[in-house]
């Protein structure tokens, strides 16, 4: 009943593809349209190929949307340099950059460039957008990693706890906490954490990714990854590692708490669903310990919807990273994006936004693949 495709299921967790795969009702009526399964794994391969192909239209639509929207207001050169240059100079630069051609020509040129991996060149500091990504992407990745770790540590165990104590005091408390985490904008959470731990208690640094010494060491390191945690481990200096972690704690916490709230609710809802299943009762009557009951019997089957939805949080995490990075001057993609926004460098903004769209689309693909690998039901 719950899984019926007629139910307006918008939160059952598993993506729509998988819902359809599980019980497309009319598939049963017309069995001849089903592909014959020659051997195990061909269903999976087919699923993966289709899912991979789905990325293309997604990216295409988003690119088109962003391109058209960014051009509604006019050409990027006037937006960035208007007022600073004379009309003639502006016209010259617009012509040089090709922004005076028909929009449709520019559009096809842009799409073509994207397919060759060229995301444009920023106006304000004249760098290829792809280079901006490789320079600052690592920092964002690192921040997202810390946030995810914190979210997992807090969200999953407490979500199980809330599900177990459903409708009792611990559950009520945890749910309100989860909603509070969700209701607090990351930048406000960041500011409060800063105020308490950096300014009043003076335990942790206010902003940045490391002290000047650390930053210098990182620059000098050969073959650096840009991910400070890895680089610090490779340098092998305890002080630097401690410094890197101290700088990462507050930003990671600010972004992580937001995500933790979401994970907590998600785990709670899904574990409640599985806890009421007959096999859990059966296990309980066999004398399985309560802890194991929640941890294994109820949590495992709830994992697939959880993984899928967690994957969808990547979009949220990236949006949150933009705000967190500006709060803590964490020099990643999001910080850079706000810098370009302030400089009104819309070529750079467009490039970064499209790149992030690609990242989101690819991550969603990976998540679906993981879900398919874990649960045979998903893949037919």
């Amino acid at each position, binding site marked *: 009943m719950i899984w019926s495709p007629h139910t*307006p299921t918008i939160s059952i967790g598993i993506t729509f593809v998988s819902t359809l795969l599980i019980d497309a009702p009319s598939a049963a009526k017309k069995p001849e349209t089903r592909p014959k399964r020659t051997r195990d794994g061909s269903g999976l391969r087919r699923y993966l190929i289709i899912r991979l192909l789905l990325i293309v239209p997604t990216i295409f639509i988003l690119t088109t949307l962003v391109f058209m929207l960014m051009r509604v207001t006019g050409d990027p050169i006037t937006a960035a340099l208007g007022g600073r240059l004379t009309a003639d100079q502006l016209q010259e630069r617009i012509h040089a950059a090709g922004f005076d051609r028909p929009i449709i020509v520019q559009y096809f040129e842009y799409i073509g460039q994207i397919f060759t991996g060229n995301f444009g060149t920023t106006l304000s500091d004249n760098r290829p957008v792809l280079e901006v990504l490789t320079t600052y992407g690592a920092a964002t990745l690192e921040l997202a990693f810390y946030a995810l770790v914190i979210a997992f540590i807090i969200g999953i165990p407490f979500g199980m706890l809330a599900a177990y104590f459903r409708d009792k005091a611990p559950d009520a408390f945890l749910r309100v906490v989860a909603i509070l985490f969700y209701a607090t904008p990351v930048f406000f959470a960041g500011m409060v954490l800063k105020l308490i731990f950096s300014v009043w208690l003076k335990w942790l640094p206010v902003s940045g990714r490391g002290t000047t010494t650390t930053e210098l060491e990182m620059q000098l390191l050969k073959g650096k990854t840009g991910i400070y945690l890895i680089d610090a481990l490779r340098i092998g200096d305890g002080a630097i590692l401690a410094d890197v972690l101290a700088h990462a704690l507050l930003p990671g916490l600010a972004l992580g708490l937001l995500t933790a709230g979401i994970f907590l609710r998600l785990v709670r809802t899904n574990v409640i669903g599985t806890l009421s299943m007959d096999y859990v009762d059966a296990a309980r009557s066999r004398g399985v310990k309560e802890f194991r009951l929640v941890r294994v019997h109820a949590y495992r089957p709830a994992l697939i919807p959880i993984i899928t939805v967690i994957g969808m949080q990547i979009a949220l995490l990236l949006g949150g990273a933009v*705000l967190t990075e500006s709060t803590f001057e964490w020099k990643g993609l999001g910080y850079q994006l706000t810098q370009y926004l302030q400089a009104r460098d819309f070529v750079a903004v467009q490039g970064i936004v499209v790149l992030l769209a690609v990242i989101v689309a690819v991550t969603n693909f990976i998540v679906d693949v993981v879900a398919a690998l874990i649960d045979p039901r998903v893949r037919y």
Partner: protein
Amino acid sequence: MTTTLPPALRPTKRGVLSRVKFLNNARSSVGVQRGMLLTGVILTALLILTAIFAPVIAPFGFSQLRDDGGLFGAQSAPNPKHLLGTTTGGYDVLSRVIWGAQTAVSVVIVAVLLSIIAGVTLGLLSGYIGGWLDRMLVVICDAIYAFPTLLLAIVMSIAISGGQSSLWGGIFAASISITVVFIPQYFRVIRAETVRIKNEAYVESALVLGASSPRIMFRHVLRNATRSLPLIFTLNSSEAILTLAGLGFLGFGIEPTSAAEWGFDLNKALADVSSGIWWTSVPPGLAIVLAVLGITLVGESLNDLADPRLRGRRAVAATAGSVAATSVDPVAAVAPDTESLITMLGANYYPEPESKQKS
């Protein structure tokens, strides 16, 4: 004198009020859920009242820099005259927090109304007409849905206002930016419901009776497709406030002289934090938290009450059977609907939706 029966045994009178799902659900809440619902309703009411009566409650105007006693001064600590101190720009913090409620509520109303109108219309058309229109719309909405909300809102606000604007210009720019983000959610829900309802017997009988398509769509389908709207509606309202604040924080808000906006104030307060000045950041931040908390609590409780799997066990008995198995989770909401895409790409093991069988 009538004897009071336990709720489960009371005869159900279908009055006007009992048709309002929210009230029905609220009555069936118990314990913790009722507490959460009540807290949410109180906080939300507080937000709306503050918004309406801002001109009366606020001690000063949102862009007021001086009164008879001269300039307010910048960053002055809380004192009897300025209960929450003044900002870097020399505004009264308390007043701006109160006026901020007005901006937030206006944006929420405009944004949610716009996205309901657009999302519902598109969903209805897409689900009812089907075919290529449906597939295209589904693909577009999926793509937009997967995109980071805030980034889309930034791009929209650049497109609409070039980044900065006046009071109503700003409110509309922010609202429309948020609307685009929300349309896919309404679209998906309404479309799914429409596809389901389209095959119901009463729609077919209306067809047989010769009712026109618009009549069937709006009278028979739409009326029955809206049951989960209130849930998405509340959850989106809270997200709208957060998105507005995020836009404001990134400097895409409304100019301080046109209106008070919490996110914008937090942006200006960012530098103050490092020097230990708390009163410029904490009040607007708390205002956001309380507003979002209130609305989310209402939405959350509604969601639980509408979902028999999540409703308090005792309450299930009272309303079982009358409630649809609908679950809306603000976060989990709407996984990508790739059905049409798959058909488009030629993987023909999904049969066509039943729509074609009707004619």
